[in-house]
């Protein structure tokens, strides 16, 4: 095998390998094409359900960031969730953060519902209005309790339909 042939084959090999890396980066995964370093915003929840670090943060179904950290504040006994949001998406100060579930059994994510205020959230700000995760067990027990109460009174049945 002459040196020229070897060089040619090594060249082909390198092109194949780099093409594979590009394929894995661009076609298989998503490279975060954010316009800069994300800004962090803090939120407090009574219950985060099954939310995990790196879960998506969505607004109107569009991914705008990720959950950067989750910890329990032992003074207030509430969960502090840190969100890293793409700077391309500014949000008003009165935005509501909610923990939602994609589909019935899907993964949980943080949904942002923007309000109407003029001032925008800056890095390090806290979103005060939050809506905790819906815990299925609580929902069911509430439903059972309500129907039991309705059964006892035998009246006004349609007012407490969930």
């Amino acid at each position, binding site marked *: 095998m002459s040196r020229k042939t*070897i060089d040619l*084959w090594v060249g082909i090999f390198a092109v194949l*390998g780099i093409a*594979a890396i590009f394929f894995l980066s661009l076609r298989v995964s*998503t490279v975060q094409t954010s316009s800069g370093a994300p800004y962090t915003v803090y939120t407090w929840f009574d219950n985060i359900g099954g939310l995990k670090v790196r879960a998506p943060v969505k607004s109107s179904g569009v991914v705008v960031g990720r959950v950067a950290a989750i910890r329990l504040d032992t003074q207030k006994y509430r969960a502090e969730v840190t969100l890293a949001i793409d700077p391309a998406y500014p949000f008003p100060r009165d935005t509501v953060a909610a923990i939602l579930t994609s589909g019935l059994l899907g993964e949980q994510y943080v949904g942002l519902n923007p309000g109407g205020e003029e001032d925008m959230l800056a890095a390090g700000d806290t979103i005060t209005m939050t809506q905790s995760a819906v815990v299925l067990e609580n929902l069911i027990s509430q439903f059972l309790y309500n129907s039991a109460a309705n059964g006892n009174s035998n009246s006004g049945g349609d007012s407490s339909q969930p």
Partner: protein
Amino acid sequence: MMDWLVTPLRHIGARIINAIWRLGFILRFFAALLLVSGQSFTRLHLTLREIWFTGVLSLSIIMVSGLFIGMVLGLQGYEILQRFGSGDALGIMVALSLARELGPVVAGLLFASRAGSAVTAEIGLMKATEQLQAMDMMAVNPLARVAAPRFWGGVISMPLLAAIFSTAGVFGGWLIGVVVIGVDHGSFWSQMQASVDFRIDIVNGFIKSVVFALAVSLIAVFEGYDCHPTAEGVSRAITRTVVQSALTILALDFVLTSFMFRGLS
């Protein structure tokens, strides 16, 4: 008295001490190898020849194996995901298993047995036929001229092979999942893209393959260089290369995985 207890203990102790001694020896060899590596890059054709030898010649086995592994993942994954009604997530499963684990690990194992053993055999035979000694007598350092280019050739080839393996695997999964079983083409790719993270999955997988490449290449070159210069010694060295590379890859994989992916989900 207590011989049945003392003898095996002493035996185990001796083996442990020997293993530690050998590890130190390998690391010293590694340091010496790095010190004389300059030539591998100033005289690039030496390293290119080894990339051809370890990389290009392993291409076919890597691509075919990747394709088959991907096809098996497609079949098995679909069967399992189907039970939860999420057959559409097949793309995620195929891509994640390949990018995180199977790509680097299986490509590493194949690389060790295809290219690592060949490197050990080549260096071992050069030693057995006094070629290394002849080089040394001609004032050419065999560590720089023979060992270092083979080491760097392996270190460069192996991550590329792992990427090619993963790509072939994703195509294998696509072939079975989309073309044969009939998973929706769009959701196969879009779910995969949405759930596979570049930094966490692809970059970490790539780091794994680089670490495995360093380990396998070092073991292959060292075993060849250190072998007993006889036919039997060379064959033993080849066996050791394959066995030690496999064990090292699997052990390192556990360590790296626990660092990279623990606490993520």
